[in-house]
């Protein structure tokens, strides 16, 4: 019953102990803190950088080129915007050198709203990330997927961005879903969570974790249904699932597709689901203008137009300059269970 952040920490441990990870770094990533969300506590190769995001991304590129295997963190994606030209270089180096150099690096960064993070701890990054070709982009919604996608990211020879939905980081997974984790949740906490206070003498005791490589580019059907397809990822997945459960009582049967990978994305899974339900809703938190869901809808309209029984719908973040701190402001800015539920119901009721 690991939380998502514990699953990430365990994946990084597996990475550094047997998958060749040499450097895990970022602001406050090393001892004593081990990450502002505790994601890097107790790791052997974790170290602290200066407060310099461009330096972090540049270092990751350089380390990768020198044959090392870096996992870098930008503390909040809200602070990754000044690194975009370096992210472009990581993404275009293999292409622009005609295959001379690849850049095998992982960049992790917490994204999205849901923790009352106000204007600069609530940004989404998926729309930006999918605008940088040459990167693989993944975003888990469960602890198990976080573990398995991060292991796949680590062994990938390309730059992979691992977007961490920060509102889900402390969400517990199902018992035993991380292969090798102890059955008892408290036992896991005692083994791998750093103690409060002085932790200079503390060392984690890692469970005997097994490999789990969740392939990049494969979606997961989080809930099977026949009436409406919901294409979503990250924080919106558990919300969509909760909305679907409530709608089941009203005889509306929604299919929730957790994309998990934004690029490359699982077009086959989308086609299969849309052919079954004939109705599509895209849900994510990024602002709605030039949103990744818009791309999915464009392609669905172009390639599956005659399969559709209702206009595809996008439920996304309001196109306003920030997410305000007050509860009402945050909730009004990004999709919520209620708005997802209403959108699914509206699509289900639509008749051509």
């Amino acid at each position, binding site marked *: 019953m690991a939380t998502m952040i514990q699953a990430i920490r365990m994946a990084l441990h597996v990475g550094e102990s047997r998958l*060749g990870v040499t*450097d895990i770094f970022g602001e406050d990533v090393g001892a004593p803190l081990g990450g502002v969300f505790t994601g890097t506590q107790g790791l052997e190769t974790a170290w602290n*950088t*200066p407060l*310099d995001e*461009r*330096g972090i*991304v*540049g*270092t*990751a*590129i*350089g*380390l*990768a*080129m*020198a*044959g*090392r*295997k*870096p996992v870098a963190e930008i503390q909040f994606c809200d602070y990754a915007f000044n690194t975009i*030209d*370096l992210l472009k*270089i990581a993404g275009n*180096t*293999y*292409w*622009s*050198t*005609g*295959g*001379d*150099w*690849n*850049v*095998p690096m992982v960049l992790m960064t917490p994204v999205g709203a849901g923790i009352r993070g106000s204007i600069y701890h609530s940004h989404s990054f998926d729309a930006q990330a999918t605008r940088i*070709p*040459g990167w*693989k982009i993944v975003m888990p919604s469960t602890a198990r997927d976080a573990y398995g996608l991060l292991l796949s990211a680590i062994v990938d*020879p*390309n730059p992979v961005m691992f977007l961490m939905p920060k509102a889900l980081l402390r969400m517990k997974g199902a018992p035993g879903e991380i292969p090798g984790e102890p059955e008892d949740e408290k036992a896991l906490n005692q083994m791998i969570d750093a103690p409060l206070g002085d932790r200079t003498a503390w060392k984690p005791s890692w469970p005997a974790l097994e490999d789990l490589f969740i392939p990049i580019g494969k979606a997961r059907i989080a809930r099977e249904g026949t009436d409406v397809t919901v294409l979503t990822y990250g924080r919106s997945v558990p919300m969509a699932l909760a909305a679907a459960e409530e709608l089941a009582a009203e005889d509306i049967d929604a299919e929730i597709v957790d994309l998990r990978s934004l690029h490359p994305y699982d077009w086959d899974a989308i086609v299969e689901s849309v052919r079954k339900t004939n109705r599509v809703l895209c849900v994510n938190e990024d602002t709605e203008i030039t949103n990744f869901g818009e791309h999915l809808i464009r392609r669905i309209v172009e390639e599956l137009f005659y399969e559709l029984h209702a206009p595809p719908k996008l439920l996304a973040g309001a196109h306003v300059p920030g997410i305000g701190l007050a509860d009402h402001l945050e909730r009004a800015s990004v999709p919520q269970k209620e708005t997802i539920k209403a959108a699914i119901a509206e699509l289900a009721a639509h008749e051509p």
Partner: protein
Amino acid sequence: MPAELCLKIYDLMLRARLLEERLITMYKQGDGYFWIGGPGEEAFNVPLGLLADKGMGVDHDYLHLHYRSTGTLLAMGADPVDSLRQMKNTVTDPYSKGRNFAGHFSVRKWNVVPVTSPIEVQFSIAIGTARAQRKGSGAKGISIVQGGDAGTAEGDFATALVWASRKGAELPLLMIVTNNRFGISTPYAGQHGYDQISERGKAFGMPTAVVDGNDPEASYAALQKAIEYVRTEKKPYLLEAMVSRLRGHSSASGANLVKEEIDCLEVWEQKLEARGLMTRPQMNALREQITNELAEASKRVRGEPPPEPEQIWEYVFADKNLVGGEG
């Protein structure tokens, strides 16, 4: 400097200069879309290419260069015809397969990290290769990063100063600023309030030096000293070389000869003649021979194929970890 080395440097400086002139001619004749390069930096860049420890991996030097580094590449042994191919954007261009501008080198087998057009980003990337070579890593190589004076206004220059000089975590990084006193059209005083860029290194506790980059002997000695320090101490060093910009910023400003600037090749020729190492007729003969070779080569390159349209889809994602040793 021994006579043999003086002559070797001359040969390479001349080849680099004539290659740049051929590239400009190609551009002006419509055999390329854009020219940018390093005429006026040969006296510094050729010694750099001779002194870098060439090879692949952390036991050799990583070179994070910029788009004025033709002299360095030729001194390392690059084939000048490959530069013509990149200018003509043929599929045979080994640096970018017709995808990038002239002077945008990439040679993984020699640790020449791809040159990119954004200014100064190489200073943020160089700290990564230097980190892989830091004290205690066992790596024998160092990282060498080079950029112009105007680029030091970018935050990436400060990034390299900060990351390379942290106490106990110093990086074996030679930072080189080739100062031609211009950023496109903006003169030095228009953006820097200090006399020399190298002054900035002092605040970070690293050794610094300014060298006359128009003098190959002084440049060679300064580079030798700086490289030796970084290799032995595994700590950073900031070297500023005062150079000329003989053909302006790029083809965008015409690429015409700027007569007011010191021409390092001309000065070096006078010295070689005065020292009795070479006669004018010998120099003229060599110049004519190289000029003809390059003219012939540029005709051959014209016949080489361009990339095919469908090749835009190649090399988007790697299926092997080349830099990790998988081929």
